[in-house]
């Protein structure tokens, strides 16, 4: 009770600086300083909660490296099989990389994760020649951010699954964007590279027929959702138990 009284006095002192307390004056002034420091820290914490800090950027970069390594492996592995490359590759990447995204999202729980993720991914693609994919992936990241509006959404398994599926759809359509953007030069280059008629037909079917595109998108979404289910299970079993994530 006494502590509470002193605490109230400290708050009073802060709100009414002209009022003096004769008893416990030293204690009150110390508590006042403590209270002010506590409030300042809280304000700072609120600010850092909104901003993405260096530690957050390092976490995003670390998880993105793992994502890029997995993408770098799955892409060439599926390339010899045109059906897998065209229809399943993006979904497979989403399935395998969902855990990395979920770790980032649950650890940081801040808006802007997708924006940084999308801009960096687009920048890396631009560095490897696909410059026009940078604005595309920034756009996809903005849509993903919109799906995450609200408080603590980055710790909600359902919202994370939705946004990861949207990102997966973006990746799926992103694979077709370079071909749509420069179909003539693509056909010319592909003919010189010896693409068979079968592969050509498959690509034309996928890009021109809405049903094929919907099928490819459905495969991607299903694999993204499965990836999130698997990722959430891993998060619960390992990372939350270890105290790395909340």
């Amino acid at each position, binding site marked *: 009770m006494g502590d509470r009284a002193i605490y109230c006095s400290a708050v009073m002192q802060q709100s009414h600086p002209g009022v003096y307390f004769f008893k416990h004056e030293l204690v009150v002034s110390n508590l006042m300083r403590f209270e002010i420091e506590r409030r300042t820290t809280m304000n700072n914490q609120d600010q850092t909660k909104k901003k993405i800090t260096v530690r957050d950027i390092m976490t995003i*970069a*670390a*998880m993105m490296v793992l994502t890029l390594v997995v993408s770098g492996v799955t892409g060439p592995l599926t390339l*010899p099989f045109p059906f897998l490359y065209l229809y399943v590759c993006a979904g497979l990447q989403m399935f395998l990389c969902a855990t*990395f995204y979920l770790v980032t999202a649950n650890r940081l729980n801040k808006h802007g994760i997708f924006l940084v993720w999308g*801009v960096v991914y687009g920048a890396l693609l631009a560095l*490897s020649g696909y410059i026009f994919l940078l604005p595309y992936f920034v756009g996809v990241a903005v849509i993903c951010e919109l799906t995450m509006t609200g408080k603590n959404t980055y710790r909600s398994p359902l919202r994370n699954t939705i946004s990861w599926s949207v990102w997966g759809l973006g990746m799926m359509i992103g694979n077709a964007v370079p071909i749509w953007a420069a179909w003539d030069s693509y056909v010319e*280059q592909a003919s010189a590279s010896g693409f068979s008629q*079968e*592969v050509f037909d498959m690509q034309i079917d996928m890009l021109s027929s809405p049903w094929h595109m919907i099928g490819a998108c459905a495969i991607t979404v299903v694999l993204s959702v499965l990836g999130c289910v698997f990722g959430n299970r891993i998060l619960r079993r390992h990372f939350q138990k270890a105290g790395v994530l909340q």
Partner: protein
Amino acid sequence: MSGEKAKEKRIRRVNVLALLFITVCACAVSYLAGHMWFQIIFTCLLFGLMAVLGFAKTGLGFMAVYLICHLWLQINLNLGLRFPSPMTFSFIIELVPILMPVYLLVQAPSGKLTAGLRQLPLPTRVTLTVIVILRFMPSVMAEFADVKDAMRIRGFLRSPFQVLRHPLNTMEYVIVPMVFRSLIIADELASSCIVRGIENPCKKQGYYLNQMHPGDGVLMAGALIITVLFAVL
């Protein structure tokens, strides 16, 4: 040891932005070159640049992959083989000339890379993430090798059949330690950056200066002329 130092000295002299410009030129030639031979010539020139900067051995590796893919593609075309798909080879053939300048870019000291990227109109967060990603890659590879060894010792990689029979378990055994290790490295890197004052809002000055020398200008002009010629012809 002295060879390594000389190599480091040479790559330190080159402007990061010049390397970035050559990467963009390589992208343009790779996708827009009118004839296959133009791309081959450009790749040979890039190999020459790598050799001059002291990375002849790695450049030779890139060239070997590039030429093997070209040869294999021709064999596939002549014999009418469909496996492996020609898509694979065309993908690698397009990627190798781009990876060569990217490799040189990654070899530049991280301080110089940071100084160079800071000169570009990019947000600090994006620049920092790109630099960390470029620097993180080798560490992740080393960590993965350790995880693989640990899995082999514990008998999780006894046979490919075992891996294929329990793919999700295998995935879990790889993903969990990799994420834990990566998070530890990320935290250590973040602490190191904070201690060095990265969060200070003042204008930063690095140990390295990314100044443009006449040699860089010649390199960029040469790359531009070759790119325009190969892309237009």
